[in-house]
């Protein structure tokens, strides 16, 4: 059986120019990211860590599909909170929970574990918005999903895919 694509013709945007922080001094708390002058985690650090996650359906990144932008991320370093709002490409995107799982896993890998992460779809972007938001923020459901080999594989493919940017 061939499954049809949920969004067969997504709008692809150009990737934004990377803001270079490479000249900043070393010894920052998140060494895998661009060094940071004042050692404070901000929205750009978070965006840099998730922008290249591949969409579950297309060989494009979440940034290219405008699922995410730096503006859709807020960080409160003092309170230890990261909030991400993402916009699925279509109203009935069944891949929204997979995208949410990818974001959660990536943040777990990249940032100190004490950060409280809230992930939501942007208001009005999804028909079953409330259901998806509830599921993505139930840590027991997330933990169980990540122990499911099929789902885990799907998430890993989005996180580690090399098929990206096949313009």
């Amino acid at each position, binding site marked *: 059986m061939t499954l049809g694509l949920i969004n067969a013709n997504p709008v692809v945007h150009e990737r934004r120019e990377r803001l270079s922080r490479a000249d900043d001094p070393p010894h920052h708390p998140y060494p895998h990211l661009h060094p940071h002058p004042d050692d404070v985690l901000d929205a750009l650090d978070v965006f840099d860590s998730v922008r290249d996650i591949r969409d579950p359906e297309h060989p494009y990144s979440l940034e290219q599909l405008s699922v995410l932008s730096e503006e859709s991320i807020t960080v409160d370093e003092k309170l230890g909170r990261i909030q991400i709002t993402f916009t699925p490409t279509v109203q009935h995107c069944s891949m929204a929970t997979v995208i949410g799982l990818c974001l959660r896993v990536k943040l777990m890998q990249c940032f100190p*574990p*004490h950060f*409280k992460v809230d992930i939501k779809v942007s208001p009005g972007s999804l028909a079953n918005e409330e259901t998806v938001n*509830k599921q993505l923020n*139930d*840590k*027991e*459901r997330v*933990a*169980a999903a990540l*122990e499911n080999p099929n789902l885990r594989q799907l998430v890993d493919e989005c996180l580690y895919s090399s098929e990206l940017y096949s313009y």
Partner: protein
Amino acid sequence: MELLDSSVDLQEVQKLEGHADRVWGLAWNPAPHNCGGASAMLASCSGDKTLRIWQMGPTHHLDCSTILEDTHTRTVRSCAWSPCGKFLATASFDSTTAIWKYVGGDFECVATLEGHENEVKSVTWSSSGTFLATCSRDKTVWIWEVQPGDEYDCVAVLQGHSQDVKMVQWHPLVDVLVSVSYDNSIKVWAEDGDSDDWHCVQTLNEGSSGHTSTVWSVAFNSSGDRMVTSSDDLTLKIWDTSSAISQTDTEGFASWRHICTLSGYHGRTIFSAHWSSEGVIASGAGDDALCLFVEEKGNSVEEPSYRLLLKKEKAHDMDINSVRWNPKDQRILASASDDGTIKIWELREIS
């Protein structure tokens, strides 16, 4: 003994390390002497797929005496001791519940309860020791009857919740079961005396002043006439069954009403609440904090109310998933966290 705000403190007396992942559940053995333990014995279960038994030694410190592994293939979400203290049940995301028996100094897996379609989230033993109950993401609650020879028969599959069931807890005196769910509701289940059929006798939802988001936990007070529930809506709710019927009558514990909502104390999901036999409610939440509440005495004219006794901010480095008072020592509290540790706290009076 009356506890006053200004005169108590919750002091960390020990930190138990060893689990390689988040610790989900805790259970103090109600009869450790039946299980090779001289005094206190605590079981903890984790995302690392294992269960650890912590035993109190002569120096009054808990040490890990046993690790039960290689039985569950996924997260062990919940654990519960039988009332006699000789059996331990573990519920796992691998969709099974294992029964462990203390034999000749060791814990042996004597039964595996299968039937749930996916993750089992909670297991509880009835006070009589006759029944077990389990619940799952498959939206059902199963009741198991304990038979001779380590056999467990499923006597009921209860359907009623519209979403996954987060926790089940038996009443401390009678065979009445309470379940709480991702569908925001609390359900009370009892056996029909004539037909041996189990059915839902009450549903507490938003319309009954209940919770507006996932209900994560439920616990009873020692006399069984009140229960506390905790939720993703950031509140704790106290429920009361003031019945004139004698305490041995099941019907008397099948009609609950909301008497009090505790809100504004936790900033994130409240994953666990537990009631000490002294009447102190402990709560642990996703804001890494522990809170203790007691009943406000003196205003007998009005509805009963509860007040904050103390709040311990940053009790753990990460979310707190379970809080449990030691039934053998009512001033000792255990808390389990996503940070992989268990902490033992003592409620002390400051002189």
